[in-house]
């Protein structure tokens, strides 16, 4: 299917095989990159890819890597990520990534091959009930039974993945359907029979929100990943709203970058490892304006003690989030860009003023919390403190076109606390599912979309071993990703919890038999670097930045450092621990929480 034939083909419909339709539909949807792994049940689609040069296929080393790479691609571009996997194990390997994307509302289209229709249900080779297995971890999914319905389903899949609350979808295509000829229909704005996400806010709700904001004495904006998903316009509208009101602002892990961390209104991240000022302001505020966040348990702490004296405005595009965990005094179901822009417009049109004297007092209170310097740590001349490593990484990369991904654990929290993001789409992390092994393949996806950018995975030595094989992908495609491993030889967050909750019995949390990451880099064919002292760290980081090849950086950090501040499980926002000296008694109810 050359592009010359494309041009002469009728604009509306064409007859082609199911496999050709897949490629055509991807192109018509503007897809330029897909991440995949071939196998028996997707060979016709791979054959169609072979004949067509319009789409770049990235061969991963494991299907989980394909899906995380697609997530990184999506998160950093705002476009849907696409993955192509085979039946059976190909599909089951994609499940972690699908669940991750569902939890973090990442738009993905995953296409899986399936055994031919006549073999479905016979326990055929590499058969599994892919739509059954992936139903709870997709926004919607389809088993295609006829080539004539394939193009409609594929276009619908893109529509559903990318609109409303974004999420992953999966299209399962039996091999015979990939060979079958059928009619291809181009994308059209068909009104879906049942799927009609509400994006326009109710005007009177916006007006009420503005009234509440103008009357507030101790307000706070609590923002989340919804602002990133809504697109850069949401971040611009948010900045304007903060300019107009002068209110303090905090964000969830998923929302970092929507508001610049350098601005004085920024309180830092909130939640379990959030700042003292963000959590105390959340606890003591009289008006909480939640924009595109979902009151996750990492954020709320003990729900019964959550911000007891405040009125709450909750904006979310997903109606089921309103009142799910915390009762909202005012719920607004809408796209964040639309709703925040309208708030700005109404605030201006009604010439609203914030309660300046009250706000001055509120800021004075916040400044006393800030003075706690809750992110401070005890520096060392001999050991690389992990906090120091993140700080130096930030200082040496902040003026570059930088994207940060992470794995999951202590290093992730240190990165979230200390790396200051100024723009959305620069921060890719697994929030809801907490997937160790996310960051390396996500970096592959990010770098694929931003070839000239500096893409760094802030990693832990345990997480990174879960998807290490994708270094090979990075090398194959000349992706100069930097894997910056804060190596403390422990599953650090597990060890921290064992210290706080299980009497220091470090059951199976020591990273025994670690590989030599520098030699491993050599074996992969990339660059290995190691830093063991604070004195050599800057030079090594600079070397990592300067080399235009993938790097595995083994940063040997203090093995016993814990991540503070911390709200222990089952505690409230104003019951934070600042350091190990604060004790850290965890209630019986807290012990059963994760």
């Amino acid at each position, binding site marked *: 299917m050359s592009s010359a034939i494309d041009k002469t083909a009728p604009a509306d419909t064409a007859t082609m095989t199911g496999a050709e339709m897949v490629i055509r539909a991807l192109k018509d949807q503007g897809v330029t990159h897909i991440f995949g792994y071939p196998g028996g049940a997707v060979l016709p689609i791979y054959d169609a890819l072979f004949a067509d040069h319009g789409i770049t296929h990235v061969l991963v080393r494991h299907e989980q890597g394909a899906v995380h790479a697609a997530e990184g691609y999506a998160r950093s571009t705002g476009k849907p990520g696409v993955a192509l996997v085979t039946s059976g194990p190909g599909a089951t390997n994609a499940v972690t990534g699908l669940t991750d994307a569902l939890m973090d509302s990442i738009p993905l289209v995953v296409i899986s091959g399936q055994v031919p229709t006549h073999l479905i249900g016979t326990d055929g080779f590499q058969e599994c009930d892919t*739509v*059954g297995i992936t*139903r*709870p971890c997709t*926004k*919607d*999914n*389809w*088993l295609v*039974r006829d080539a004539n319905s394939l193009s409609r389903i594929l276009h619908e899949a893109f529509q*559903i993945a990318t609109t409303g*609350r974004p999420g992953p979808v999966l299209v399962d295509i039996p091999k015979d359907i990939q060979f079958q000829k059928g009619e291809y229909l181009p994308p059209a704005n068909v009104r*879906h*029979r*049942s*799927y009609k996400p509400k994006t326009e806010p109710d005007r009177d709700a916006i007006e009420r929100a503005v009234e509440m904001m103008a009357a507030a004495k101790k307000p706070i904006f609590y923002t989340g990943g919804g602002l990133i998903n809504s697109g850069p316009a949401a971040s611009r509208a948010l900045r304007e709203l903060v300019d107009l009101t002068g209110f303090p602002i905090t964000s969830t892990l998923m929302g970092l970058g929507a508001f610049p961390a350098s601005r004085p209104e920024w309180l830092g991240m909130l939640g379990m490892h959030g700042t003292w000022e963000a959590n105390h302001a959340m606890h003591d505020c009289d008006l909480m304006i939640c924009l595109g966040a979902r009151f996750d348990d990492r954020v709320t702490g003990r*729900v019964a003690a959550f911000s007891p004296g405040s009125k709450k405005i909750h904006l979310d595009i*997903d*109606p*089921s989030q*309103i*009142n*799910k*965990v*915390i*009762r909202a005094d005012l719920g607004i179901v809408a796209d964040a860009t639309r709703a925040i822009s309208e708030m700005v417009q109404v605030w201006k049109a009604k010439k609203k003023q914030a309660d300046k004297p009250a706000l001055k007092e509120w800021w004075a209170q916040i400044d006393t919390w800030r003075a706690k310097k809750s992110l401070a740590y005890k520096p060392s001349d001999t050991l690389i403190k992990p906090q120091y490593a993140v700080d130096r990484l930030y200082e040496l990369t902040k003026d570059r076109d930088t994207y940060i991904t992470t794995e999951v654990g202590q290093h992730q929290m240190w990165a979230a606390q200390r790396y200051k993001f100024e723009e959305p789409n620069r921060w890719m992390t697994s929030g809801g599912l907490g997937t160790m092994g996310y960051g390396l393949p996500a970096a592959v996806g990010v770098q694929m979309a931003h070839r000239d950018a500096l893409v760094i995975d802030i990693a832990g030595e345990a997480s990174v071993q879960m998807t290490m094989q994708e270094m090979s992908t990075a090398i194959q495609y000349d992706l100069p990703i930097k894997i910056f491993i804060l190596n403390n030889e422990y599953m650090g967050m597990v060890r921290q919890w064992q210290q706080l909750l299980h009497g220091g019995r470090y059951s199976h949390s020591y990273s025994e038999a670690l590989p030599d990451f520098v030699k491993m880099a050599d074996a992969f064919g990339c660059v290995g670097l190691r830093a063991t002292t604070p004195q050599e760290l800057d030079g090594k980081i600079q070397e990592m930045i300067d080399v235009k090849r993938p790097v595995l950086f083994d940063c040997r950090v203090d093995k016993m450092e814990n991540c503070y501040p911390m709200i222990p499980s089952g505690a409230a926002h104003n019951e934070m621990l600042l350091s190990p000296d604060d004790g850290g008694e965890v209630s019986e109810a807290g012990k059963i929480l994760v």
Partner: protein
Amino acid sequence: MSSAAQTNRHTMTVLVNNESGVLARVVGLFSGRGYNIESLTVAEVDPTSHTSRITLVTSGTPHVIEQIEAQLGRLVPVRSVINWTAAKGGIEREMALVKVAGDKRDDAKALAEKAGARTVEATSSSFIFEVTDVPAQLDAFIEQMRGLGLVDVSRTGVAAISRGPEAM
């Protein structure tokens, strides 16, 4: 949210696109999020528009019920959700087939006739009654049959429809 709130039974109807997997998606929502299903009935009601109607009885606190409605409403193949118990605008009926056998079956038959049940099979040793009513009345009827030789029960689950001339 408040966990001390009272649990109540609610009847809901969910109109869905009649497509493969939709029932599994609805049922999976209940099991995945830990909600109850007390009964469930499903059938295609409009073949031209491929619409199926799922009527289910669930129970929960007001907060849980609100979540169930919202979570059902956001499923892609779901067209609309109505909570008949909250709307108080619905008529509910359920049908049961009730088999009795033994010495007291003539007493059972007399009682069944009084309750408006039809006898759909009579053998020399057993009866099968068909009874349609609101679920609570069926509960009461079945309870009465227990002392009169009840052998087996099959219930359809609830069907519900709005009062007056309008569709849901």
